[in-house]
């Protein structure tokens, strides 16, 4: 096997199409031309750097030098494109060189926006861990009707529970159902403008509103998820509830509880599950009949895989997935 490369490091290491060498910065970072999204530029530079980096110590000196040049170009692209003044100069020169109408390109792009935000289901009876990108030009409906953009499967939700709208560059949430309720950051709301990181609770689900660029960057990256399953007790609309690591939720008979266990001897705010120092912890909220962990009454205790919780007449098993 030959250890020689074709003489174009940009196509060998970055899979860039043939063309100008070194490629112009947007092509190098595989971004749309004149992209002005700082975080995406930084992310793209990191991604391209990652691709080339392992080849940096190539045994062949010449090859190493070629790779070093690619790395330098990536670093330069990042420096130039994230500095407004330098970017302006670069863009002007580039537009002129390629004979492109920059204003035209940017105007046409406004019409087809790139998704910037997403909703992630971080707790609920089903679909936990799923992320839905939000397209700015659509009305994003939430509910259990099959026509909803975000289709959720709890009977606690209305057919059309709520919707997200994008106006003047901002997303807002509106609770549209006649019954039921929506909490945002633990406050009951009818309508609210959303901020990145907002926590929407509706019908037994938690939806996190996040910037797409922040995906995967959260502490612990949601490990380990927990699932609570009713193994004995009265029947319920949702016999299980899951949540990703980092989440917290209320268990009780109250309508505002994320996991509603309606039955005898369950207090309205019975206990809380939360994620602390990489562990799931249950805290009893001074319930009348107490929270039992493996048969013992506890005020606060870490929960392990296959532990049993007794809440009123419900016997619940905890499963932790690693």
């Amino acid at each position, binding site marked *: 096997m030959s250890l020689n490369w074709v003489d174009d490091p940009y196509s060998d290491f970055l899979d860039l199409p043939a063309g100008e060498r070194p490629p112009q910065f947007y092509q190098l970072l595989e971004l749309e031309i004149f992209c002005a999204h700082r975080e995406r530029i930084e992310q793209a530079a990191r991604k391209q750097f990652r691709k080339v980096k392992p080849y*940096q110590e190539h045994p062949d000196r010449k090859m190493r030098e070629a790779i070093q040049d690619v*790395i330098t170009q*990536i670093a330069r692209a990042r420096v130039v494109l994230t500095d407004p003044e330098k970017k302006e100069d670069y863009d002007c020169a580039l537009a002129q060189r390629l004979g492109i109408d920059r204003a035209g390109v940017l105007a046409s792009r406004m019409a087809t926006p790139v998704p910037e935000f997403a909703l992630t289901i971080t707790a609920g009876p089903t679909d936990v861990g799923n992320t839905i990108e939000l397209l700015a030009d659509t009305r994003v409906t939430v509910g259990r009707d099959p026509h909803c953009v975000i289709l959720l499967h709890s009977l606690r939700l209305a057919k059309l529970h709520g919707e997200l709208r994008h106006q003047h560059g901002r997303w807002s949430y509106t609770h549209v159902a006649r019954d039921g309720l929506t909490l945002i950051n633990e406050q009951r709301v009818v309508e609210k403008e959303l901020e990145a990181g907002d926590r929407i609770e509706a019908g037994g689900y938690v939806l996190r509103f996040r910037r797409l660029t922040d995906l995967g960057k959260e502490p612990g990256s949601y490990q380990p998820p927990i699932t609570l399953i009713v193994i004995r007790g009265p029947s319920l609309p949702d016999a299980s509830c899951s949540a990703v690591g980092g989440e917290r939720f209320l268990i009780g008979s109250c309508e505002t509880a994320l996991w509603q266990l309606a039955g005898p001897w369950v207090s309205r705010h019975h206990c809380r599950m939360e994620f602390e120092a990489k562990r799931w912890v249950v805290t009893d909220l001074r319930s009348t009949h107490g929270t039992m962990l493996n048969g013992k009454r506890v005020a606060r205790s870490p929960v392990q895989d296959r532990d049993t919780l007794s809440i009123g007449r419900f016997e619940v098993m905890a499963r932790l997935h690693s």
Partner: protein
Amino acid sequence: MAIESDQVVGIDLGTTFSAIAYVDSGGRVRTIPNREGELTTPSAVLIEPDRTVHVGRKALRARVKQPNRVAVAFKRDMGEKFYRETIGGREFSPEALSALVLKKLVGDATAVIPSIGGAVVTVPAYFGDARRKATQDAGRIASIEVLDIINEPTAAALANAFRQYLHRGGDTTRFELAAIATTAPSTTLVFDLGGGTFDVTIIRIEGERLDVLATGGEVRLGGIDFDVRLVTHFCDEFVRRHGIDLRDSPESLAQIQAFCEMAKITLSSRTQTVIVGERYGKQLHLPISRRQLEELTADLLARTQISVENLLEDALLTWDRIDDILLVGGASRMPVVADMLNRISGKKPNMDQAPDEIVAHGAAIHAAILHMRTSSAVSVAVDGSRTITTPEVGVEPASDTVAVPDLFDQKVVDATRKVRMTDVNSHGLGVVVRDSRENTVVNSVIIPKNTPLPTERVKVFGTEAANQRIVRLRILEGDTRDPRGCTQIGECVIRHLPKGLPKGSPVEVSFRYDTSGRIHVRAVELKHSTTAEVELVRNTGFDQVDLTRLTNAVSEIDIE
């Protein structure tokens, strides 16, 4: 204070500067100054026409007058098999040049410690196997017993943990790393931008445990790259004004390199300076501001930033999980480094009081720890899987080492023995296999990078053809799927497979990587248990003849 015999030392063998340190009987870490009275020695070697060798400041000064007789920055070429530096018409390997630096350090240190029993030498965490081997070889060539090779950031973290403990009012007369146990666990990001290499490492310290969580960096990124930008800037300007290129003359170039380095250092404390150059009676006074330097080197800094961000991503960590940022290495003194880290982390990085010595200090502490372990009659490796094992490489069995009480107070010994450290591998290890779906050869990584050591991993592959009688495994170091991006570090061959094996017969390949850097490879044809085993010891990059010849040559050289 009486000087004890057979003391062990720690050596930071740097690209531009080196340092040597030891732990005294009371547990204090001390840098040993060289004969010129400096705490760090420039890693520069001058070989005069009469074959007199000078290492350090004098060699660095001579560079301006005799650039062809002085070698610098050879650490960057460590482990390059065919690379030779020509000095005064003779060829030298980077290992031999490094050996001369080691010899100078150890030789000067004998003024303080008459008999040196062994040394721990540091390497950048991002060094691959070949470069580590080369470093070990440099020690052999210099006739120094290399007790262990450890990573620079790990050494820095170790020294820092020790120092912080002292800072909190610990007993300065005792070496009680154990006392750190009483403080809360903390996670430190060590940002080490040295003269020639860049490392970034995340280390968790909890009680007496030090665990390296992840490591990254670049082997060829350091202060000298920043100097080069200034040199280019100045020379281009000189050409523009006078039509003369200073780079045409090695002497002028060496001089301007020295001035530019000085200017860079000045710009860390002041916002403006002047570089002066002269040739054929033409002069140039070029004022240069800190801002300008930052502009010229923005992409170099961006590279360090990308490495830091990618490392955090690899380690699944966010800035809120990092308690401290520790700046190490001379080039970290540039204010723009701390600014950048502050901007991206929201935290104030800590510059060590002695960023040039901290790595040597950590190495000295590690050497002391090893020394106490090997000298002990009692086995201390309680949880053997996670301790620093006795370094077998180049070390005699524990029995004939010196008795401990001569060297250290018993309390120092007791405390030190408790220290536990785990490191990670900076590069993946794998084997070349054929991907049958794509019909291409690929590197199948068996131990991915940033795996805590020691470790053992197993993968099963199938034979490539029916009736295959031999399986040849090429062992690679590197993280790319394409084998061309990796370095082959060994081979493991199973011969005499029984006849008539069908295609796809399972072959199990296991890699074991121990803490002292040995890699054991085992391949088993599962149906008939035909086995092949190979141990890749980080032994030497040279053959024995070369090594002996070099060792003899170096031992004959007196360093003036």
